[in-house]
């Protein structure tokens, strides 16, 4: 498929995360085993059961112009920061790509929650006339996609998948489809999230979904570990530039990896709880492998969704074991980044691509005592330190409340 329309490659990467202000610093911190998690010191958090968050390493206000920033919700700010890095690194703009053939697909799980809640405070305190005229464009869930589209001058369509914690991965899948259908020549894809605020924190905590290991912030996110007790909310964004391989090579672009296949399924089981055996997740992974024209034996690495919730991790372990098998090196990078919700799939795709490119799988932090669950025990989960390996293909899977399952298959360039 090297010269076909279906040959889609990744030519740009961008990120702003709890581990770093860009891709390079985030990757370095990940390999060094650093944690992005800390305990909230805000007054409001004092009585909260779950007080842990993975805040951005660098405030977006230091990365984008003040006047521009004040019209963007924080979720849009991080989207723009990550997207501009990916766009710059791809060199697409310098190569004279036709803006009419540039599309954007950028997802978010929650959207402009900080704006919605902040402006509601203003409404309550000062009345309707004091509500910002930018409230709606800042809170709308297509806001990050729209802000990114404007930032790079994309005129070939701007789309915003919203599938909770699968949104970032779903954006990548849509990007692949747009290129395969020849609806664009370049697609900037990714996900963004920034909703550290009392209400989302309280809502997730009421679901008993968050870790309450408040006294040990850096040890709290511990996917697949016996003592895991929930996820840690993170904020940030990640972005990828996708284009067809022949066009990328013709313009001399650096190709980081191929996006070989993708698939999505729905559990059809429960609005929130994952299917206990990961049935829908497994179908997504199997379908993505078929889409890529690969078999389970080809997959050397899986960047797992693994959020550190008791039920989610075991369900996913079963899905990976039953579809990919027991040979692949599995890692769960949320152990260090926290859970970036709608940005998670995009960030973990960046990690998957870097693992393929560098032939190095990052370790899962805090995995001291793997769960007794048979599927978890069966997997080869990388821990303690990154592991070198010969990798040709890798899977990144993402799941979201609502029963959304997305699997992506990347191969070496």
């Amino acid at each position, binding site marked *: 498929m090297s010269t076909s329309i279906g040959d889609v490659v990744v030519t740009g990467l961008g990120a702003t995360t709890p581990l770093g202000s860009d891709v390079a610093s985030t990757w370095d911190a990940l390999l060094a085993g650093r944690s992005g998690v800390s305990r909230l010191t805000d007054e409001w958090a004092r009585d909260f059961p779950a007080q842990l968050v993975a805040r951005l390493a660098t405030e977006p206000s230091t990365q984008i*112009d003040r*006047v521009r920033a004040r019209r963007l919700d924080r979720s849009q700010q991080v989207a723009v920061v990550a997207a501009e890095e990916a766009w710059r690194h791809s060199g697409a703009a310098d190569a004279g790509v036709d803006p009419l053939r540039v599309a954007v697909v950028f997802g978010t799980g929650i959207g402009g929650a900080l704006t919605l809640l902040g402006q509601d405070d203003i409404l309550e305190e000062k009345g309707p*006339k004091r509500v910002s*005229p*930018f409230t709606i464009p800042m809170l709308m869930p297509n806001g990050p996609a729209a802000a990114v589209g404007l930032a790079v001058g994309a005129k070939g369509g701007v789309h915003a998948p919203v599938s909770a914690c699968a949104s970032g991965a779903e954006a990548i899948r849509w990007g692949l489809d747009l290129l395969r259908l020849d609806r664009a020549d370049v697609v900037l894809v990714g996900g963004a999230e920034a909703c550290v605020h009392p209400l989302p924190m309280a809502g997730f905590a009421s679901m008993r979904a968050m870790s309450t290991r408040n006294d040990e912030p850096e040890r709290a996110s511990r996917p697949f570990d016996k003592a895991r007790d929930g996820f840690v909310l993170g904020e940030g964004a990640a972005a990828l530039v996708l284009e067809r391989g022949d066009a990328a090579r013709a313009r001399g672009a650096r190709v980081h990896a191929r996006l070989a296949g993708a698939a999505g399924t729905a559990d059809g089981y429960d609005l929130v709880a994952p299917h206990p055996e990961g049935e829908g997740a497994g179908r997504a992974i199997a379908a993505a492998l078929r889409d890529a024209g690969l078999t389970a034996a080809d997959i050397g690495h899986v960047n797992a969704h693994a959020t550190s919730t008791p039920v989610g991790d075991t369900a996913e372990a079963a899905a990976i074991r039953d579809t990919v098998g027991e040979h692949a090196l599995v890692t769960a990078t949320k152990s260090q980044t926290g859970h970036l919700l709608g940005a998670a799939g995009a960030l973990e795709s960046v990690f998957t691509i870097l693992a393929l490119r560098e032939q190095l799988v990052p370790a899962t932090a805090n995995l001291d005592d793997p769960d007794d669950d048979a599927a978890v025990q069966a997997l080869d989960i990388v821990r303690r330190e990154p592991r070198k390996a010969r990798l040709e293909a890798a899977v990144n899977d993402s799941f979201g409340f609502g029963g959304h399952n997305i699997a992506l298959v990347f191969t070496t360039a």
Partner: protein
Amino acid sequence: MSEPANADIQTGLAEILEEVAGVAPADATPEKSFTEDLDVDSLSMVEIATAVEDKFGVAIPDDELANIKTVGDAMDYIQKNRA
């Protein structure tokens, strides 16, 4: 041109324009059109009107706001309606 009596209005308006729209204070002169010269869009005009009310105690109704095209128009409106 601004008279000494409304010099404070021009200064105050320039501060608002810088905060809301990133206009350099030196560019906030009476003859400048908000949309043509200073790239201030309609939503930013709403924010400017709110800031004017806070700073000068002058509310600008929507039908009046539509007639304010230049920095000078805004200065005149504030001057006339200021208590």
